[in-house]
């Protein structure tokens, strides 16, 4: 800042900072300063400060004052930077725990509900014009969950962001999908095969547009989660460096003090050193613990959750395609690269089963304890039975025994239907997901708690340390009076 209205006396109006400098050092130097040629109206604060320092450094009290100021500044800076950096990390860890992970789980829930609704719709369809009540209820619940999930997701999304566009798209498609399903049901009730065509159209909307959009949303929420992790886990190097610097400065001061006075201890300085050391130690240890907890929550929680979610979706899609194979056998075919032609839905079923199988295998390797592994292993067993029974159902259908095939898919327990296997896979995956969710909460919570009080603690301790340093230096200064 300059003072444009400086018309007064050329002997540069003695500014405030000059006064104490002259008072302490006195003499010609400061006179020389004030009698500078009128050109540069004022010297820079840095130059003035440097001069002042140089002047102060000529006497011991002056030197002490400078040392005291530097120490206090260093310690305060250390405390402030620590509080700032750890607040960032603590907030990010908080977001992981309370915002981005729940949102990611919410997106996974939308994804699952949609896939489940589609699967349930086809199951109900298979059962005939009069759908079983349980199926209708499950379908309605899925649609409600998805709709509610979309509202939650929308609330935490920036307007105009790609996520918002995806949510808009899903909101537009959901009623469209429901309309097609209702048309399918109405036609099925009347025994019209066009109901099956509507079901296939609805399935197409779900598979080709809605599920990819839901997956997209899920991926985006996962990216947000990942970025929160990235914000929470890096070491606060700046704070640590300042802490080390403050401790070294405090150490050097005490060594100087000892050399000059032969006094071993200066209480103020010792207190400052101890407080600074505590802050530094707390930062390093706390952050290491937090980091370990968060990394573990990612490795053992989030990664498992992602794999399990994907497996669950694959299982749902497989079930839907299995139903559609029976609803619309022969309505659509797919030509494979080797020239063979397969029923489009049976082919899709096989692909989904491959995805499920791979997902479960990965989930077993990711599961880090028996509780986590058991349901996944059980689900793998269910899946194998499912594949066997599916083969039996297909054989029955290919032999022209539709009723046997139908019983094998949606029949009662006595028929040993694949529906049983699917339900078991789903239940076991839900159990595994619950366990991994708990694992995540537990570890991420531990991690976050490790640095919970750190920002405030660092600030308070830094103030204490700075006061200690000033008091310690003050005590030495008082000896010169």
């Amino acid at each position, binding site marked *: 800042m300059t003072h444009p209205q400086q018309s007064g006396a050329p002997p540069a109006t003695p500014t405030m900072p000059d006064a104490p400098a002259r008072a302490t050092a006195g003499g010609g130097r400061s006179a020389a300063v004030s009698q500078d040629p009128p050109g540069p109206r004022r010297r820079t604060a840095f130059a003035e400060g440097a001069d002042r320092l140089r002047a102060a450094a000529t006497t011991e009290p002056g030197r002490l004052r400078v040392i005291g100021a530097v120490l206090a500044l260093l310690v305060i800076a250390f405390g402030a930077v620590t509080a700032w950096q750890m607040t960032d990390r603590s907030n990010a860890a908080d977001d992981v725990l309370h915002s981005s992970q729940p949102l990611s789980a919410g997106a996974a829930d939308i994804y699952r509900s949609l896939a489940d609704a589609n699967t349930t719709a086809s199951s109900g*369809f298979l059962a*005939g*014009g*009069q759908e079983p009540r349980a199926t209708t209820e499950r379908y309605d619940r899925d649609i409600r969950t998805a709709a509610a999930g979309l509202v939650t997701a929308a609330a935490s999304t920036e307007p105009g962001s790609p996520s918002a566009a995806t949510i808009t798209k899903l909101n537009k498609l959901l009623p469209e999908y429901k309309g097609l399903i209702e*048309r399918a049901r109405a*036609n*099925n*009730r*009347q*025994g*019209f*095969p*066009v*109901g*099956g*065509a*509507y079901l*296939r*159209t609805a399935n197409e909307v779900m598979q080709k547009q809605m599920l990819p959009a839901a997956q997209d949303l899920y991926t985006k929420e996962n990216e947000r989660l990942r970025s929160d992790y990235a914000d929470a886990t890096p070491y606060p190097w700046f704070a640590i460096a300042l802490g080390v610097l403050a401790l070294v400065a405090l150490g050097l001061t005490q060594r100087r003090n000892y050399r000059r006075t032969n006094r071993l201890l200066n209480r103020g300085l010792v207190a400052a050193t101890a407080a600074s050391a505590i802050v530094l130690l707390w930062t390093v240890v706390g952050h290491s613990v937090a980091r370990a907890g968060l990394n573990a929550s990612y490795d053992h929680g989030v990664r498992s959750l992602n794999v399990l979610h994907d497996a669950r979706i694959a299982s749902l899609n497989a079930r839907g395609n299995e139903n559609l194979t029976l609803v*619309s*056998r*022969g*309505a*659509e*075919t797919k030509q494979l690269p080797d020239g063979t*032609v397969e*029923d*489009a839905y049976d082919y899709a079923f096989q692909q989904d089963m491959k995805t499920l199988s791979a997902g479960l295998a990965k989930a077993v390797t990711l599961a880090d304890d028996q509780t986590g592994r058991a349901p996944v292993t059980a689900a793998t067993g269910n899946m194998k039975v499912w594949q066997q029974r599916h083969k039996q159902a297909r054989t029955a*259908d*290919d*032999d*022209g*025994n*539709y*009723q046997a095939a*139908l019983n094998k898919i949606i029949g009662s327990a006595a028929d040993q239907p694949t529906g049983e296997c699917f339900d078991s896979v789903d239940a076991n995956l839900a159990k595994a997901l619950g366990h991994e969710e708990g694992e995540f909460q537990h570890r991420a919570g531990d991690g976050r708690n490790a640095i919970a009080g750190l920002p405030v603690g660092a600030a308070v301790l830094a103030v204490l340390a700075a006061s200690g340093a000033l008091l310690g230096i003050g005590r030495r200064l008082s000896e010169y009076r």
Partner: protein
Amino acid sequence: MIARRLRASLKGWGGVGAMLSVCVLAVAFALLLPLTHAPVDSAPGSGSTRLAEATQAKADTCGRHPEQLSPQPSGDESGPAVTAVKQRGYLSVGVDQNSYRWGYRDPNSSGGDLEGFDIDLAHEIARQLLGDPNAVRFHAIPTNQRIPAIKSGQVDMVVRTMTITCDRLKEVAFSDPYFATGQQVLAPKASGITGYDASLAGKKICTAEGSTANTALTQDKKNHKLAASTDISTTVPNQLDCLVELQLGEVDAIVTDGALAASQAAQDPTVELKGKPFTTEYYGVAMNKGAGDLVRRVNQVLVDYRKSGWQTSYDKWLSPTLGTDSASSRPPSS
């Protein structure tokens, strides 16, 4: 005496001569007809050229009337194919399960039995061959799997609204026709569409991918038999999906076999068949080329079926949408 013998021998030679000349004429006709017609009803293009050549090469076995080439009916059951079926105890038939009134599963009937016009015929064949109309196993097969299923022996026969064509005759054998149909327009009753004519200008038409209807429409658009403003770009995997498109308002009309169009009309009281069929096609029962005895036996079944069961089945499944007069659907008797 001499004069009389001369006259008799002349008569004999004359008969032979007449037969010869008829044969020559028939062969020439069969050979030349596709040539004279080729430029008229098919646009230049590798596909149609190939078709013309194939027809020419096959002129001795397949002409303009592939439906007339099935062997004579016979009640003989000593042939290998019929014996195999009898020993097995059931007939294996490829059918559709999504064609209302032809071959479909009523979701509201317990047991989910297939029913329809095609299914009735399959039951009748089983009844005559094996003495039990239910001695039949149905296989729901996709449209494009009809021929592979026969060739691989997965099914004995396919009764699935399958049109008899020369191309298909190269791969499988057909029975005598059991139904006459043709490509037809299906549109909402309230629409201004009157048939396969100028009223389709500016309209969107739906056809099934790779169907006869799709080929015919593409051809006719090239030949300007169809207005240039007619949009025929909507194709779907299954003809039934066209009804979905129509009900959703995505298209204005559907072109498919009249028989299948009738099946669609039966599922939606607001649409109807418009105008007359603009092609003539016949459905036949497809069987393995090697099973000549089975083909002849099925032809015998059809001879009887046309007399009695056919009309009953028609009245039950098709008269509501195709009209009570079945004359145009009745196949020519062989």
